[in-house]
């Protein structure tokens, strides 16, 4: 294992400051404890994540296990040791805390030109809901490699986690992050990718579990021709707060990004937040971007916040757009489907599966796709317990 000292990367990465994306920094002093009035924190129930905001050590409450096929090298890196810190500079307090408390990062390196037959699987298991854990993972897809990496979060803990993803020139990388936490887990995460010249990157976030989950998914480019797709699925039940914040920084010309997040909500107090920021810099001529967020509200009492933002500094672009829709599965949908003999549970299943299936099909990992379908089924089955009978009327 070669150890190289990282340069002062915080200074090396050009950043644009804005209320939408505060200046990244490794220094905790640059990230004061949020009050809830900040733009980036205003949707988050801070009183529920106090355990994630104070300084503290890693209590080791998340076990890490890596399954790596041939063509992959698994290493570790301490703070300041490349490739750790090459790509991700903490964008908020929780990411800065994750970095400062995580002594050793797990580094997964997909070797140049390797085409993996099987996904790399990183199993992250929370072992104590009342203990805090800080984790940093680094994924490097070396030039012209082709791989899928699945991060699977299960169990429960108070989790601070950074994932930095370096997609080198010509590489093709898919990262799937499954948040299948137990109901009491807290998770603040930042996953930042740098997409190299002519590289292809797909990121899929799937958040079904956890009490409060707040994830940043960031992306920038290191050359022309980078192509990135960010997909997401979430399913918020009663009392769950699931927050996804995306930041696509088009800092290179002729790059492409596509964001498609879909969420279903059911139950009292179910809350989802989606904030999608796309920055098109002056230099980023000829780029193309689209971001979309769709929410499907299945019951009363659930709330979906959806905020798309586009900051455009050049007019010389191929295309830029966004859309945000929130639909309701209401009595009329239910009546129509059930009037054709379909029972209410099946009707709900049809609609939710139809809503999610486009994204699920794009994951491309068979067992993950099958697992997701089973998970959606489970969520739907849970929803019908105590749900209003078909014949009742709500005024």
């Amino acid at each position, binding site marked *: 294992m070669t150890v190289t000292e990282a340069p002062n990367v915080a200074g090396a990465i050009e950043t644009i400051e804005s209320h939408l994306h505060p200046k990244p920094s490794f220094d905790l002093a640059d990230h004061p404890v949020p009050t809830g009035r900040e733009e980036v924190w205003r949707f988050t129930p801070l009183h529920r994540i106090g355990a994630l905001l104070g300084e503290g050590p890693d209590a080791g409450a998340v076990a890490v296990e890596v399954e790596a096929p041939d063509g992959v090298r698994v290493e570790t890196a301490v703070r300041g040791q490349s490739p750790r810190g090459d790509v991700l500079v903490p964008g908020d307090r929780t990411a800065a805390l994750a970095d400062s408390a995580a002594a050793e990062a797990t580094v997964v390196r997909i070797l140049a030109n390797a085409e993996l037959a099987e996904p790399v699987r990183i199993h992250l298991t929370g072992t104590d809901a009342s203990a805090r854990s800080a984790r940093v993972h680094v994924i490097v897809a070396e030039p012209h490699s082709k791989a899928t990496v699945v991060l699977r979060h299960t169990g429960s803990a108070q989790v601070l986690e950074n994932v930095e993803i370096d997609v080198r020139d010509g590489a093709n990388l898919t990262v799937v992050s499954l948040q299948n936490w137990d109901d009491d887990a807290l998770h603040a995460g930042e996953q930042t990718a740098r997409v190299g010249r002519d590289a292809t990157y797909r990121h899929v976030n799937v958040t079904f579990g956890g009490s409060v989950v707040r994830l940043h998914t960031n992306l920038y480019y290191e050359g022309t021709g980078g192509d990135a797709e960010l997909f997401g699925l979430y399913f918020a039940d009663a009392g769950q707060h699931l927050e996804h914040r995306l930041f696509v920084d088009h800092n290179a010309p002729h790059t492409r990004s596509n964001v498609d997040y879909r969420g279903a909500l059911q139950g009292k107090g179910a809350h989802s937040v989606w904030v999608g920021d796309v920055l098109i810099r002056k230099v980023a001529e000829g780029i193309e971007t689209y971001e979309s967020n769709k929410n499907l509200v299945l019951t009363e009492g659930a709330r979906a916040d959806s905020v798309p933002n586009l900051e455009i500094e050049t007019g010389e672009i191929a295309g830029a757009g966004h859309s945000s829709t929130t639909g309701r599965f209401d009595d009329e949908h239910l009546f129509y489907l*059930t009037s054709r003999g379909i029972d209410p549970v099946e009707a709900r299943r049809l609609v939710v599966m*139809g809503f999610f299936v486009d994204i699920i099909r794009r994951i491309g990992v068979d067992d993950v796709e099958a697992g997701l379908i089973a998970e959606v089924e489970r969520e739907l089955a849970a929803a019908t317990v105590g749900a209003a*009978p078909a*014949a009742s009327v709500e005024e």
Partner: protein
Amino acid sequence: MSLVINDLHVDVLTEEGPKQILKGVNLTINPGEVHAIMGPNGSGKSTLAYALAGHPKYQITSGTVTLDGTELNELAVHERARAGLFLAMQYPVEVPGVSVANFLRTAKTAIDGEAPKVRTWVKEVNGAMSDLGLDPSFSSRSLNEGFSGGEKKRAEIVQLQLLQPKYAVLDETDSGLDIDALRVVADGVNRFTAQGDRGVLLITHYTRILNYIKPDFVHVYVDGRVVDEGGSELAESLEVTGYDAYVAASRAHA
């Protein structure tokens, strides 16, 4: 064996509370019969359709509906459909994300209690689409989403043809159709009734569709009650006289 509506009283639930719409409807539809219900706007025609199918906003306060001996009042919406009732809706709902093909297969499976035969089903679906003048590509589209008014009505009759209920209620299926679409839709209904053992309740505001679908009985509704009944000749006289006389008579009674 028949669809029997006996002294049916129905309230519609509004924001201001329940409002009585049907005030004692009696109707028996035997297999093989086509009944037309005609009446002005607000007479309760659509209320009857929704109440039969079990829409949650329409509550039966007294009276009964039985389908071949099975009482429908207490059955959930999907159970009524499985018992053999079908409602072609005036305003079919758009269901994003659910493909027509998937919906039809799921509905057919639910009604029959077993999945349709893979080998013949797709052919059957495409055949029904083509009978109703819909391109087979409609199969892969989201249910009713972005369909024109006429396409939605054609799709309702595609469902009628594929699901093969015992009794079909057609709620203003003719409204908003141009003459070509009206013919195609009427042909679909006539193919259904030509089987000889199916009952049809055709709810309409206009007499136009009755040029294409011959009713055995015509019932005129005003203010939640039947005010006149007869054969298809009654529709012809309505064409000339309209509903005004009935409405005036009903007001005089009230």
